[in-house]
């Protein structure tokens, strides 16, 4: 089971996105766990993640997050984030995890 963790400041606005991403994952279907946590609890909540995605508002902390974990860390494309486009962000996540966009 893959684990994708989304980070934002309080875990609130990414929470909305997580719900939509889960729907996109079910549609495929793609077995994975997706959750949103505040950026300050990376070490407790995301130490075993396969992929960490940062909301654009906390992207400036990317280097600090990278130092705390071993997995891939990437920023969510701001416009997809703002539109809470679960499918687009999920596609981005899947591409990062699997390496290819369509399989």
């Amino acid at each position: 089971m893959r684990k994708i963790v989304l980070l934002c400041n309080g875990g609130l606005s990414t929470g909305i996105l997580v719900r939509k991403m889960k729907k996109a994952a079910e549609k495929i279907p793609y077995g994975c766990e997706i959750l949103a946590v505040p950026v300050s609890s990376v070490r407790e909540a995301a130490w075993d993640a396969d992929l960490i995605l940062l909301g654009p508002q906390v992207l400036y902390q990317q280097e600090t997050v990278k130092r705390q974990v071993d997995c891939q860390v990437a920023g969510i494309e701001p416009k997809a984030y703002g539109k809470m486009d679960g499918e687009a962000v999920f596609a981005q996540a899947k591409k990062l995890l699997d390496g290819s966009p369509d399989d």
Partner: protein
Amino acid sequence: MNIQGISQKMEQYVMPVADKLGNERHLRAIRDAFMSLLPLTFTGGIAAVLSSAPSVETAGNGITMAWAQFVANYSTVFSWINALTLGAMSLYICIGIIHFLCRDANVESFLPILLGVCGFLMLVVEPQSLGWDGKIAEISYMDGKGLIPAMLISIVTADLYCYMRKREIGKISLPDTVPPSLSDVFASIAPGALLMVIYIVVFAVMNAMGTTLPKLIYQAISPSLSAMDNLGFTVIITLLVHIFWFFGIHDAALSGVLGPIRDGNLSLNAVAHAAGESLPNIFTTPFWVYFVVIGGCGSVLALAILLCTSKSKQLKAMGRLGLIPAFFNISEPIIFGLPLMLNPIFFVPFLSTSVINGALAFLAMQIGLVGRSYAMLSWQMPSIIGAFFSTMDWKAPLLILILMVIDGAIYFPFYKIYERNLVKQELGEEE
């Protein structure tokens, strides 16, 4: 320079600074400690709202009379809740900072918290008479006035403790047969004893001078603190936060500095309110959440309403998506989706709306037109409701409505320019 150039420059220069500032471990621990206060400030806020009944003499009849009578009967309960929530904020901040600093250093935080609480009580609470049959101490400085001593004590405690434990200073070697939990206690004896000696020496010196640590600090800095509660400071801080957000950087990067000011001012107001005195401060946490950023940073609630009526399909969809989050003070969807971030068309209104909200609300409170805030409920409470409950003044929600109209008027021309561009694009696509 075009917007892409600015964006690149920002990644190169602004982001590393924001990262340093937002992740400096002391500032981050302070910020996390203030965030953790919420359940306490919330309960304290509810109690403050409940206790704002009209006095028994002036209450009309029926419900207001019953309410006034209820508050009068249980005044001790309400005062005690106030004294131990917002009125004792510094104690909880002290515990929180030690906890988060230790977590950051991977050191078990239990023992340093015990030590820090002892140091805090010794230095911040002022003994009045310590007799055989009863002890009386003054706890007033546990409110916002004690925040700076609380930060000092917690940082010294956590940093010294973690430093000594990591370098095994004063570690007593015990045979392997001693259980590990016991040797952990022994390992903390020397760091603990040293910290206790520091607290005791500071207390003894202050006591000999006829003062306490918080009194000394507060007398020294209170002129500059009250100077900060002014219009210029409100405008500059609001502008700074929005410049950060224009580049897409969350203002949490500044919260380590802003939190103590906002919550400290709130605490002093709450204590003054409970004592029936006039409220000293304007720039508090509820002032910021409910009056300055109406709909989240960028004051996007008015804009979200405008978007919902747009002729452009994209903008209309964005408005529908962003309206409800904005109502609960979450502006990220509109900031990143519209986008407002790095959008030159919206540069002026994005930076000016919240500044104008802050300035007008500040002036309205300064001249006494609208009541000042003394209760913090929740960051997600819609402005119009939060403004009422944080001040218990019916004119406060009215002010919010007026500010929203002004925000809408400021956004309107820029929104129209943007809409025209998008409508043109959409028509082009259809042809």
